[in-house]
């Protein structure tokens, strides 16, 4: 048992290192490959577009050493990364780590809330559909799932804003403040996730409900509720939890879009701003954190799978 967990954690740690290196290197190459003059963009980010002239750009170039060879810049960045120094934002001058620490919390709030909502919506719908396959709940759920999953998160977000903020006026349209600001962006992400979770749950439930062990539990005298609670839910949870790790791609990607749409001050929002301002250390930092977030959430999913499925703990 402990060996299974320590092997898993070790694997994930190695993976995290690889992700950090690959994501960092790719963002480095991509930012260098972007069209337009880097120094001009950074100066614009600092002083505003109207104030930028060749002198300001030259000053930025000299200050940041932008004229040095890319290879040297890359190794500088790599050695800084190894000493856990992510540098300073070219725009605000703040250290990247402190900016990220601030934004990461907001992104985690959003991501975890979205995941929670997705499970709260998707799992019960899936169980109801799976207990009566091809019944009306199942068919309605299938149509809704296809519709929700075909829409990109920002369209769902816009529809939610139009309905709940503009028409009904129940929730704020964007921004960050009290708890009420979290609902719409979290829901915009959660609906797409819930659509897939509901289908995975539905198939799991139908398979479990038709299994010989489900029938045996009934004929040896357990009630329908006891059978579902003791032999249904855990077995259904196995594929649902496992599939969550596939869904994480959708989640992390969605965070970037949804944060920008709802002006949510998380790392996704910061990434988009950093790309526009060509703030290379911030781009690298945010992409890095999102990559590591992906690995961390995956590890969590694995640990939960290990917890609920004792078969996986057999070495």
């Amino acid at each position, binding site marked *: 048992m402990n060996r299974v967990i320590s092997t898993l954690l070790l694997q994930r740690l190695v993976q995290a290192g690889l992700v950090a290196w690959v994501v960092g290197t790719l963002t480095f190459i991509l930012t260098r490959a972007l069209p337009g003059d880097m120094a001009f963009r950074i100066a614009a980010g600092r002083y505003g577009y109207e104030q930028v002239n060749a002198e300001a750009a030259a000053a930025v170039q000299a200050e940041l050493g932008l004229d040095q060879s890319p290879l040297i810049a890359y190794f500088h960045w790599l050695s800084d990364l190894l000493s856990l120094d992510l540098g300073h934002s070219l725009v605000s001058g703040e250290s990247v780590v402190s900016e990220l620490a601030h934004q990461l919390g907001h992104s985690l709030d959003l991501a975890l809330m979205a995941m929670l909502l997705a499970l709260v919506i998707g799992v019960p719908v899936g169980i109801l559909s799976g207990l009566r396959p091809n019944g009306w709940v199942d068919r309605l759920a299938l149509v809704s799932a296809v519709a929700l999953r075909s829409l990109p998160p920002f369209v769902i977000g816009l529809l939610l804003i139009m309905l709940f903020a503009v028409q009904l006026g129940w929730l704020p349209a964007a921004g960050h403040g009290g708890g009420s600001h979290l609902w719409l962006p979290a829901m915009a992400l959660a609906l797409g996730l819930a659509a897939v979770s509901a289908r995975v749950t539905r198939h799991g439930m139908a398979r479990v409900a038709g299994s010989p062990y489900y*029938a045996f539990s009934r*004929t*040896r005298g357990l009630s329908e509720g006891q059978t579902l609670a003791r032999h249904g839910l*855990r077995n259904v949870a196995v594929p649902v939890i496992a599939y969550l790790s596939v869904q994480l791609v959708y989640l992390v990607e969605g965070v970037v879009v949804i944060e920008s749409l709802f002006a949510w001050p998380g790392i996704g929002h910061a990434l988009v701003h950093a790309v526009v301002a060509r703030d290379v250390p911030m781009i690298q930092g945010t992409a890095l954190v999102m990559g590591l977030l992906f690995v961390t959430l995956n590890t969590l999913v694995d640990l939960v799978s290990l917890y609920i499925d*004792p*078969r996986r703990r057999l070495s």
Partner: protein
Amino acid sequence: MKAIMEVHDLSVTTSEGATLVWPISFTLEAGVPLTLLGETGSGKSLLAQALMGNLPPALNASGRVIIDGENLLEMPPQQRRRWWGRRMTMLPQEPWHALDPTMRVGAQINEGHRLVAGLEPAAARHAMYDDLEGLGLADSEFKLPAQLSGGMAQRAAFAAARAGNAPIVIADEPTKGLDSARRDDVVRLLAQALGSNGGLLTITHDIAVAEQLGGTVMIMRRGECLESGSAETLLKAPQSAYGQQLMAANPQHWLARHQHFNPADDTVLQARSVSLSRGGKSLFDNLTLNLYRGEVLGINGASGSGKSSLGDLLLGLVKPDAGKVERAPGIASTRFLKLYQDPPAAFSPFWSLGTLLHDLCRLHKLSWDSVPPLMERLGLAPDLLERRSDSISGGELQRFSILRALLLEPVFLFADEPTSRLDPITQQQTLELLVELARERHCALLLVSHDKALIDHACDRQLSLEAPIRG
């Protein structure tokens, strides 16, 4: 004698009106086991489900099933549901699949005592320990079903099914896939459970189970009861033609083969001083073996003795710890094949058999011309090609497996318990066809079975593996 369950004209029909089980009547008496014997697919399992009241929604049961003056079939489903586990219980086929794969064995027995029998937590735990102890599962409390052998899983399922102390036990093919020693254990358990006040209805295709249980035996075919009587007289001298055929097909009554095979020097496969161990125990050591074309070699032994591993090793699916297996040179690797024990697991249920065979022919560039004559030889009607594997009988499907293997003109065929899931008559027919076709085509056949009588009958040579000491 006290009648514990009376069944009058019970029949099972589909919603379209087709009859699957013809009206059948019998009485289950306290303390006297009743065994339904018949071919696979003869509606025996449907009968068990009709008695329990858990037929699939598309099927209907009619007639009367009387327990304590109440007609089970007219009872509202909710009320009947409360009888399950408490007044009647069903011992499942395939115990491995009947236990929850993600719950520890102890907990699955414990929940029966606590939730069905209604014991206090401490008393339920106590009852669970008694069960485990009594069934030789003392160290299995924290094991998962996948860690149990077939026999152990059947005993655990037995304890779980009986935890609610239901006096009536319906056992549906309780010995399917078990070797003879495990089978005898299960039969002993069933007889114990019966006691003097309980009722036991066993449904099986295994004549030995009926013999050992004694009591009353009914012979069923195609959903119809052909005859019934006491086990002693009926099994010795059945009156119906089918009953006589069934007894004759019992491997115990088969004649041993006396004709000896003279190997021409036509070696297909040679194993040179191979050894294999599993879990620290040696299965066989320094074994040297030659297989010749056209010969039938039997391997006999209890489960866990390494019979199937030896077959897999000869086929090259398992690497020996020491020694090596050499194939005759110049023969395509697709001509060394295996025939599996469980035919449904060896076919995709999503495509018609015709499609599967056409795919096979296309893949190996075979001509379809050889299929129809072979189907005729194997007694497979052409219209079966349009069906899928889950809608034909086990015997037919196993003959399709044989057909599929023979199309590739094998020189070596490893048949792993190929007939253990078939009823005696189908078993005999299938096995005889397999042996005949293999000889005819000069294919070396390696036949693995736990049934000594079957090996004696069918094989030119045999090898017996000692069972390892079981924990």
